[in-house]
């Protein structure tokens, strides 16, 4: 009998061009390489200077998302870019893609959007693949049972030139989420609770495999939300075994295998889930039925509490450096230890990003917003994750709900998630954000981010204060 293997081990083994040895890392083959304007220019420069070419343009896909504006189109239907550096960066990507034959989803075109939204949406992301991108949230694609992780720009160059990476095998961590989520509690709350429990460094060195009843019950988009933030838990990647939910999602998408090819792919995909008796190096657990909506109070995604809870006190911190970290974070956030967050006034709400900018997120947000209005003095930005999401939302009339309530309906992109364009949270202002990072200055210099689910974000939008969304359902 062969040794039982985990999902990660199966994907890893199937992509080893050269196995690892004590002296050398494995040469790992990459099935899909996604690129965007910010982390690729220096990699193209490197391969150009060495006279190399892109080995597999047919396994490479480019989009524009990070530095693009999300302001409305002009009379010609074009999204105007005004920042000279963004223009230069986008032009550089156009030149690089044209020179090396890489397909590009051009700004404003039908398929453009955040790199981690468009991969799944277009059927590029498939079970069992190895997927990389010069972006840490590449972990999102692990929701399909792919091994997907972020790489640096040097490695982007390696993959462009060789379609391979030098990699040491990661350790595995089973993340079991048992039970069922209650009403008003979402996938975002699962992952925020996990990181609050195990810390932002808890997953370092591991690839997570999420499993258990609560995970099985999630839609593909919810699974993406969970895998997306694996990196916030420190993990190299997050994976979920593919099942009927996965296959149904992939079937019929533009770049997915069709007809007989789909059937044979399906047979392969069905063999991917971890075998009975496969062992993991580590384990984490969470009980879904005990979860309530989560919100962060500090300056890393692990500084989160149940929305009904209180901000920790210095005494509750494990050691001196954790106390220093809490003190610094609360000083930046201008929040007090031991106090609740419920009822705290907020200024901005951001709905979007590769964590929660998909159609189901917008449906959920619009569902709660319908018939209500945005509280006075609150700015609400709704930024679809892709043009496809935007079009779908408009065909369902979601944009009308957002606009009628007083929210801004914007073009697709990363937007206020990293504030590389003009979508910023002003200094000292509080934003309830559905994105994934609340780092100091992440959403603009001096911005104070409270990370939460789309439901919790809308609850804050309509009341103007941090509110438990379950009281509005």
């Amino acid at each position, binding site marked *: 009998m062969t040794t039982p293997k985990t999902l990660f081990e199966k994907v890893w083994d199937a992509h080893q061009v050269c196995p690892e040895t004590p002296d050398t890392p494995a040469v790992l083959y990459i099935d899909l390489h996604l690129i965007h304007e910010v982390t690729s220019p220096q990699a193209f420069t490197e391969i150009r200077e060495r006279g190399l070419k892109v080995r597999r343009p047919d396994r490479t896909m480019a989009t524009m998302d990070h530095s693009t504006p999300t302001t409305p189109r002009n009379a010609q239907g074009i999204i105007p870019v005004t920042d000279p550096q963004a223009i230069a*960066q986008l032009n550089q990507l156009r030149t690089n893609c044209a020179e090396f034959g890489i397909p590009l989803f051009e700004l404003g075109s039908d398929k453009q959007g955040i790199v981690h939204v468009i991969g799944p949406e277009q059927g590029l992301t498939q079970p069992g693949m190895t997927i990389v991108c010069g972006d840490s949230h590449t972990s999102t694609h692990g929701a399909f049972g792919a091994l997907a992780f972020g790489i640096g720009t040097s490695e982007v160059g390696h993959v462009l030139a060789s379609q391979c990476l030098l990699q040491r095998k990661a350790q595995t961590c089973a993340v079991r989420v048992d039970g069922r989520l209650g009403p008003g509690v979402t996938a975002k709350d699962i992952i925020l609770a996990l990181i609050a429990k195990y810390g*932002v460094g808890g997953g370092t060195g591991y690839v997570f495999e999420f499993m258990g009843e609560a995970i099985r019950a999630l839609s593909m988009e919810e699974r993406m939300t969970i895998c997306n933030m694996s990196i916030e838990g420190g993990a190299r990647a997050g994976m979920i075994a593919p099942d009927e939910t996965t296959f149904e999602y992939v079937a019929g998408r533009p770049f997915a295998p069709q007809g007989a090819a789909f059937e044979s792919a399906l047979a392969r995909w069905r063999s991917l889930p971890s075998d009975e008796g496969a062992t993991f190096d580590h384990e984490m657990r969470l009980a879904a039925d005990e979860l309530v909506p989560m919100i962060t109070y500090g300056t890393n995604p692990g500084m989160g509490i149940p929305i009904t809870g209180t901000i920790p006190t210095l005494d509750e911190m494990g050691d001196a450096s954790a106390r220093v970290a809490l003190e610094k974070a609360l000083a930046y956030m201008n929040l007090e230890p031991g106090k609740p967050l419920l009822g705290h006034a907020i200024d901005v709400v951001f709905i979007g990003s590769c964590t929660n900018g998909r159609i189901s997120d917008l449906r959920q947000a619009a569902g709660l917003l319908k018939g209500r209005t945005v509280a006075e003095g609150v700015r609400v930005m709704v930024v679809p994750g892709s043009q496809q999401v935007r079009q779908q939302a408009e065909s369902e009339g979601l944009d009308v709900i957002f606009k009628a309530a007083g929210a801004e309906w914007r073009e697709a992109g990363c937007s206020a998630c990293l504030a590389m364009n003009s979508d910023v949270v002003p200094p000292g202002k509080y934003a309830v954000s559905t994105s994934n990072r609340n780092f100091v200055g992440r959403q603009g210099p001096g911005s104070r981010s409270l990370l939460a689910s789309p439901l919790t974000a809308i609850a804050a939008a309509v009341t103007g204060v941090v509110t438990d969304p379950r009281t509005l359902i």
Partner: protein
Amino acid sequence: MDSIKTITGKVVALPLENVDTDQIIPAKYLSTTTKDGLGEGLFSTWRYNADGTPNPDFVLNRTESSGATVLVAGRNFGSGSSREHAPWALQAYGFRAVISPSFADIFKSNALKIGLLPVIVDAESYYQLVSLCEEEPQTQVTIDLASQTVTLPGGQQVGFPLDGFSKHCLINGVDQLGFIMQQDADITAFEATNPVALNTQH
């Protein structure tokens, strides 16, 4: 890449945990297409006041920190984004090594690729280094790759882990892209036997 055998240099301590890559180099410095000028953006939120003048309280701006080439930082250094701009900025500023109880995975891998040495030490040695920096701002250490040790001023040696391949590449100045390109025959053979139903060009 240049070969690195030992690094001797002045240490400066930033005793904070979970220093993320948004702090190391904020997003506004990422709209560049080269690696130039990133040193100016290093820790910019901390280094500069709102009006752009240097913040005299930040450790790197103190006179006694000038010329430091080894950064000591709290656990989980470099968490967050995968931007290689973070190690580029540290290197451009003049750092050659970062010592910490732990590093975020992608940061560590990026740093090793460009020859910015991530040195993992136990918590006790970390705290010792932090107090040394506080007591004597001119503290120097020597990091030796071959023996994988950090030598403190008193002669005390602290070992650190480093995978054999990275060590080999650093000491011999091996270019990893060059190494990977030499595997061409194996890559071609792999592609022939592992067709994937994907073509981004259709």
